């Protein structure tokens, strides 16, 4: 083992690079399991969604779910992977009670796709990272084993409902450079997969799981780079946990390296579990023989050949991924990259809402402002989905149109928006019931003359060249009639004063 370096030998704390690679499992959004017709519905009572095949009963055989394969190909295409023309399945052999066959059907040496990437761009410009994808492959999930440690019983309970659920495994290159980047990249991956209908990526229900490999590259004064041993972190149940665990682990490795000087290659890869409440990673025990999975070709399945036609069809069915959509929105509606990012990150349905609204309004920027300031804020407060949002694009466009026509100002428009939201009534209805009938020109003129007559000081100021003094008239006008348009009041008052 290398001698522990004295603090003088090492670079200043924090001058290391954190090197991160991710391994993500997502559950594919199919109705049935990968190899049998059992449903994949989450939350069913234990062992009620199982059959001979997913129970691994003697004599049972797998038949591949076409939709699962198609979704996996869609994911790989969206991740810019090459799709192998020929792919096969392999058995990964190990004993565990949530794995009823004693092997997992997975892919070993010929995954159906490899060599892709997914870019994550921080909309505020903090970073931009293209993360290489080593491979994407299709495999079956295991069941669940549950142990009630508090009860102190000798048994674990096994529920095989999840066994055989289709999973896509996505393995990245170690291209990420900070916990924040890792979290942002995961958000982008999730967005992509949800957009394409590949997975619901619900981490609470286990449809997205992340393991992370992390180590530090520490430059030495002599120009060489010290690399700390790679640690695999497991048990992270949210993207926030991923970020926290990576940050903790980077700091831990830094301290460990400072204390021991231990470098990559001096010890086998360590697996550490994230303890979220405690906010620390803990070493997990390592079994020497557990890595001998004895992969061999699954003889119960036949290989798959993917033709150029198949790929063309898969591409056509894929739809526009989020990155493309951001560009498209910015270009088509003249909104900022930041605004496009905010809209796209809310999902496909919200983008559809926005596009309908912008089309009706005929102007992207105003529509985008309303989306960001009013629709999104309200959605966040109320919860729920955009589909169920009570103010439909036509109604919102109506409000925006009336503001543009000078019927009322924006703040009045917001009140109407709030009332439509709360009551579910039409805009016209709300406008009428609030008495927001547009103030007609005669009434406006009468009001303005009354104000001019009552405010000789303001009139004098305006006549003295201080037109901004007219603002005082507008405030009074609004008090007398909340429905007046401030711009019109201002124009009419100035006109009357000039005519005096």
């Amino acid at each position, binding site marked *: 083992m290398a001698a522990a370096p004295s603090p003088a030998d090492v670079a200043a704390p924090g001058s290391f690079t954190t090197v991160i690679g991710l391994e993500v499992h997502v559950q594919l959004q199919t109705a049935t399991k990968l190899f049998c017709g059992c449903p994949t519905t989450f939350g069913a009572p234990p062992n009620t969604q199982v059959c001979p095949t997913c129970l691994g*009963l003697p*004599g049972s*055989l797998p038949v591949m779910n076409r939709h699962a394969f198609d979704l996996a190909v869609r994911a790989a295409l969206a991740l810019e992977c090459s799709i192998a023309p020929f792919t096969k399945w392999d058995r990964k052999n190990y004993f565990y009670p949530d794995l009823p066959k004693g092997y997992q059907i997975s892919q070993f040496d010929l995954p159906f796709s490899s060599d892709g990437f997914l870019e994550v761009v921080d909309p505020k410009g903090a970073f931009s990272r293209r993360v290489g994808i080593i491979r994407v492959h299709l495999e079956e999930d295991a069941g669940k084993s549950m142990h009630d440690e508090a009860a102190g019983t000798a048994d674990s309970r096994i529920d095989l409902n999840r066994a055989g659920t289709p999973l896509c495994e996505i393995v990245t290159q170690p291209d990420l450079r900070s916990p924040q980047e890792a979290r942002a990249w995961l958000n982008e991956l999730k967005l992509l997969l949800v957009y394409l209908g590949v997975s619901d990526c619900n981490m609470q229900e286990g449809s997205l799981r992340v393991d992370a490999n992390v180590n530090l590259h520490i430059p030495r004064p002599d120009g060489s780079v010290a690399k700390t041993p790679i640690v695999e972190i497991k048990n992270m149940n949210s993207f926030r946990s991923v970020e926290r665990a990576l940050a903790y682990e980077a700091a831990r490795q830094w301290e460990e390296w400072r204390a021991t000087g231990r470098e990559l290659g001096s010890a086998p890869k360590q697996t550490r579990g994230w303890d979220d409440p405690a906010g620390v990673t803990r070493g997990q025990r390592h079994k020497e023989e557990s890595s001998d999975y*004895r992969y*061999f070709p699954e*003889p*119960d399945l036949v290989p798959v050949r993917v033709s150029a036609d198949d790929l063309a069809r898969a591409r056509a069915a894929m739809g526009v991924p989020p990155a493309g959509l951001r560009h498209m929105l910015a270009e088509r509606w003249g909104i900022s990259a930041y605004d496009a990012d905010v809209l796209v990150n809310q999902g496909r349905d919200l983008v559809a809402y926005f596009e309908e609204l912008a089309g009706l309004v005929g102007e992207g920027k105003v529509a985008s402002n309303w989306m960001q300031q009013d629709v999104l804020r309200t959605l966040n407060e109320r919860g729920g989905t955009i589909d169920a949002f009570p103010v439909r694009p036509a109604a919102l466009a109506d409000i925006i149109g009336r503001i543009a026509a000078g019927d009322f100002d924006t703040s009045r428009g917001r009140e109407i928006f709030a009332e439509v939201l709360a009551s579910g009534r039409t805009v016209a209805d709300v406008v009428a019931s609030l008495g927001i009938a547009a103030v007609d020109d005669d009434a406006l003129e009468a009001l303005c003359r009354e104000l001019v007559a009552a405010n000789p000081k303001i009139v004098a100021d305006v006549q003295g060249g201080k037109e901004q003094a007219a603002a005082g008239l507008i405030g009074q006008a609004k008090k007398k009639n909340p429905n007046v348009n401030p711009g019109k009041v201002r124009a009419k008052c100035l006109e009357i004063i000039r005519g005096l």
Partner: protein
Amino acid sequence: MPSDPLQLSAVEIVAAVRSGDLTATACTEAFLDRIARTNGTLNAFLCVDREGALARASDVDARRRAGRPLGPLAGLPVGVKDALCTADLPTTCASKMLAGYRPPYDAEVVARLRRADAVIVGKTNMDEFAMGGSNENSAFGPVANPWDTSRAPGGSSGGSAACVAADMAPVAIGSDTGGSIRQPAGLCGITGLKPTYGRVSRRGLVAFASSLDQIGPMARSAADCALTLEAIAGHDPGDSTSLTDAVPDYSRMLDKPLTGLRIGRVPEHFAAGLDPEVARGVEEAFAVFRELGATVHDVRLPHAHHGIPTYYLIAPCEASSNLARYDGAHYGHRAEPGGGHRAEPGKGHRAADGRDADATAAFESPLVEMYCRSRAEGFGPEVKRRIMLGTYALSAGYYDAYYAKALRVRRLIRQDYLDAFESVDLIGGPVSATAAFPLGEKTGDPLAMYLVDMYTVTANLAGVGGISFPCGFTAGGLPIGFQLQAPALAESLLLNATDRFQSLTDWHRRRPPLAV
């Protein structure tokens, strides 16, 4: 029509049941009585379903009386190898591991038999998990050969072969991974067909080696095998490896003349190791085929002699994985906690040599202990040997030298067949090197037992079909088997050639002098 159903062929039984000359009930009772009288001697059946079979038979009779349509195997008693799942009967694979196990579903072949109105009379004995060539690896005792009860019936479908030979059922279902239909058929003097890989659905067949396993019929004649195969063959969407090709009408093609048929003869088959009496019987069979208008040509299968080592790598590798599911967690045998005096492998060897360590405490967890002890108690020695051999050959550092190497030789073996079938239509030869051997003769020597499959494993490795039928008897009165092998999906030719052979010979009509 003879009054004794035991003397009727399957074809005759079905015709008689359909015509009303024989009731399914009377037929079934006759065979059940025969089973009751002989099974004590032969141990061919692990379980007999008297009640279920009679209920089934009476249903067939009722439907016939009502003028309702009957299936192609109406009233035909069938014995089913205990490797096929039956929802109403235990399915044990002759293993303590699955003693009393009742699957929640029927194998596809069993379902097809039922749909064809066959009467399943029981489950036949076999080598544990189909691993063996003598039926001595059954956890429930060996089967005796009906021709000489001191001898083995062959295996692994020994119970199926013996039950047909001893008139306990006119037809039985077997499975063949390396010869397990053909070799016992040969040693018991019956006709057994291993179809092309994928011709018959494997769904519900307890897997031994998935890329080699195939289910097939065992009966007294090619005609009876043809009738049965028509009922069980065909595409099953539940088996990804099941072929989609249409099933020919095998029975109608049986009597096609063999004029111009080219049969290959492999000179290497007659090298040292082949019993002279068997060699003579086989050569006489070639003569019969010549008489039938066929021509016999020498062909080479240059890699066939590598068949046994190739097979004994591939089959154990697949088996080690297929049998991993028997771990005591979800079904099957589970060792009682805390008992036993077995060392955990890898730990116990620290103890002094030759001493059986009580090293229960050395298991790394109660779960690992449960696994190791359940499997140690549930599996017999041959199954353990093959699991370990396969595990070893797939393990890190050995995969290329053993498993991958065997797969390469497998391709050479298959290519040999493709080349040979360029010049001949069928390949003939012995099915095993000797006639039935005495029980116990090879049980102490696994390698000697492995060699009994030397003429049969290559068909499984190549995925082609083969049929075995009696072509004579030894001076000691034991049947000699002849094997024909055919290109993929040429079952009709195998059955046609065998039927023509049986039209000119009566070896297949002989009955063992079984004293019961």
